[in-house]
């Protein structure tokens, strides 16, 4: 007997059609979708191995005020074939902002492969409390990671804290992250092992093993001799800082860190690290990227420290606007603000503002309700608004900061300790 499929199909189609406008409207109000594709040459060295290859790294991120989903990966072309280097996905869920405080839950899973012998999978989960106010943010968090197929035999307990602040076009960030985990140390074979929890805990008076070297030849994935292996609790603490600066077409990020911990857990090449990345935007969606630096070892994952360099192009696209980070931004960041007729009683507002997350306007034509502009490029924001001919008042706000009069239009005091722009829309 044939089932009547039409009603269900039609219902689905109608539902979808009716839902789409709402999704689009919702997206314009509070969502962001960001896609990036980087391609270029990369050079990586760790231990005695150096590797050069053509690399491709796509990433996509979708975020609303309540959650964010991100997926990224990279593939390298070696010996005329492509191989997967990194792949991962992450989900973040946010509570509403109450008095500047927000709870955030984070979960992720990823795979990293330095080469055929050095691969690691890990799942992470955690939460943090994030306080945000204008140009400043502070967070405290805790979480757990589970590395697979590597040195640690326990979950990795992570405690972290951080602070960020924005000064004009510069964002400064500092974090402290502490990792606590148990791994099996093979004192005779000079390495770490993966496996049985039946291995005894290392005696306090046991001769110290040499620092763990994570190069491929020294990492054993089988349990060492029972007499030489013991379980050891490890704690390492990373202090990291970064500065991100953006001016016109140039973005520069400089980061560095220092690791503290027992010499058994922290190899010499992981004590300090530093990196830099520069992007020069050639168009709104295309940038030339150069990056290089060093990364510390990841002892919980059995991955050694490495140095890297990369040169390539980045293609980025923001089909809908990005999310909200309440940061006050000076009006001087607004490179241009224009209004052009776009049909009967419609005006197209375009603004060029780089390095910001949200741009909103409000005015008498919106009954003074804020409306976000839609991101159309790296620094291009746009909105189509109904506006009749005549005199209108308008304010704009960047990253949730103060309401300002848009540059390029006459302004008067608003009577509320600010200024309001005055637009004259002529027939």
């Amino acid at each position, binding site marked *: 007997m044939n089932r009547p499929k039409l009603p269900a199909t039609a219902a689905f189609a109608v*539902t979808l059609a009716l839902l789409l406008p709402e999704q689009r409207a919702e997206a314009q109000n509070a969502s962001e979708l960001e896609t990036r594709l980087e391609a270029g040459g990369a050079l990586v060295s760790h231990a005695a191995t150096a590797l050069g290859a053509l690399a491709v790294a796509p990433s996509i991120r979708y975020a609303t005020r309540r959650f964010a989903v991100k997926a990224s990966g990279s593939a390298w072309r070696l010996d005329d074939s492509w191989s997967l280097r990194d792949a991962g996905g992450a989900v973040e869920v946010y509570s509403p902002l109450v008095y500047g405080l927000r709870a955030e839950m984070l979960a992720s899973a990823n795979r990293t492969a330095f080469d055929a012998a050095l691969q690691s999978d890990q799942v992470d989960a955690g939460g943090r409390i994030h306080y945000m106010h204008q140009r400043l943010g502070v967070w405290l968090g805790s979480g757990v990671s589970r590395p697979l197929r590597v040195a640690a035999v326990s979950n990795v307990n992570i405690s972290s804290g951080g602070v960020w602040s924005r000064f004009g076009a510069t964002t400064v960030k500092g974090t402290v992250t502490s990792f606590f985990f148990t791994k099996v140390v093979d004192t005779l074979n000079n390495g770490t092992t993966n496996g049985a929890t039946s291995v005894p805990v290392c005696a306090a008076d046991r001769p110290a093993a040499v620092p763990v070297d994570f190069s491929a030849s020294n990492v054993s994935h089988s349990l060492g001799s029972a007499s030489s292996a013991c379980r050891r609790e490890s704690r390492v603490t990373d202090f990291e800082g970064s500065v991100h600066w953006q001016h016109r077409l140039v973005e520069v990020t400089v980061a560095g860190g220092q690791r503290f911990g027992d010499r058994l857990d922290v190899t010499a090449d992981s004590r300090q690290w530093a990196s830099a990345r520069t992007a020069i935007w050639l168009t709104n969606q295309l940038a030339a990227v150069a990056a290089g630096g060093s990364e510390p070892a990841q002892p919980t994952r059995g991955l050694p420290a490495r140095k890297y360099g990369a040169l390539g192009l980045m293609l980025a696209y923001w089909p809908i606007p990005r999310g909200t980070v309440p940061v006050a931004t000076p009006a001087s960041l607004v490179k241009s603000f224009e209004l052009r007729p776009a049909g009967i009683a419609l005006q197209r507002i375009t603004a060029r503002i780089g390095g910001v997350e949200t741009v909103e306007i409000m005015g008498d034509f919106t009954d003074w309700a804020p409306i976000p502009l839609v991101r159309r490029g790296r620094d291009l924001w746009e909105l189509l608004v109904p506006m009749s001919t005549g005199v209108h008042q308008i304010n704009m706000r960047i990253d949730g900061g103060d309401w300002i009069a848009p540059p390029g239009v006459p302004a008067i005091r608003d009577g509320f300790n600010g200024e309001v722009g005055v637009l004259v829309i002529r027939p």
Partner: protein
Amino acid sequence: MTGISRLGLAAASVLTLAAVAGAQDSSRPRDTDPLSRLDQQSRYAVEMLLDSARLAGLPTNPLESKALEGVSKRASGRLIVMRVRETYRTLKEARTALGSTATQDELAAGAGALRVGITQAELSQLARTRKDKQLTVPLVVLSDLVTRGVPRDTASSTIFQLWQRGAADDDFLGLWRGVERDIVSGTDPGVALLNRAREVPSRGPPAAAPASGRPPETSERP
């Protein structure tokens, strides 16, 4: 119809209703009762002022807009009422100064000029010489210039002279852009205006001098 189909239709109906309700909400930023965002006491005061404006034949939009602006900018109810009352007063004065033929936009622009300190007499001067031209843009530019620090008398007389010389809206907007640039680069606002005003071409015979009112200051011509 199978159970699954019925379930699908029911789900679709619920989603459809939700979507329609949501679409209505998101596609219409305007509230049906925007003043509901005010506290009760302030709302009452604002509604009284709106009624007064209606009775006086004044546009009510600027008053309502000022109230909503205050709400969105999180001003106190007391300050909002104060600003709405000020808007009402300046609208009334603007109509007296500009005459009953003034358009709503001219009234709004005139009220803005009065709020930055331009006098009714100065507005009247402009109005008397306007013939069939709209005063909106010159008044908006005048208000902005005073807000940016140009001395009131200098701004008023310069705009009046340009107006007399037949300057068009684009001339005023071009003047404003030039002055803004000069001020940003460090020039004294008054000097910037006088310098830039010299660059505005004369577009016709001067309009008739005002029969009364304070004579404008003279400024040098190139």
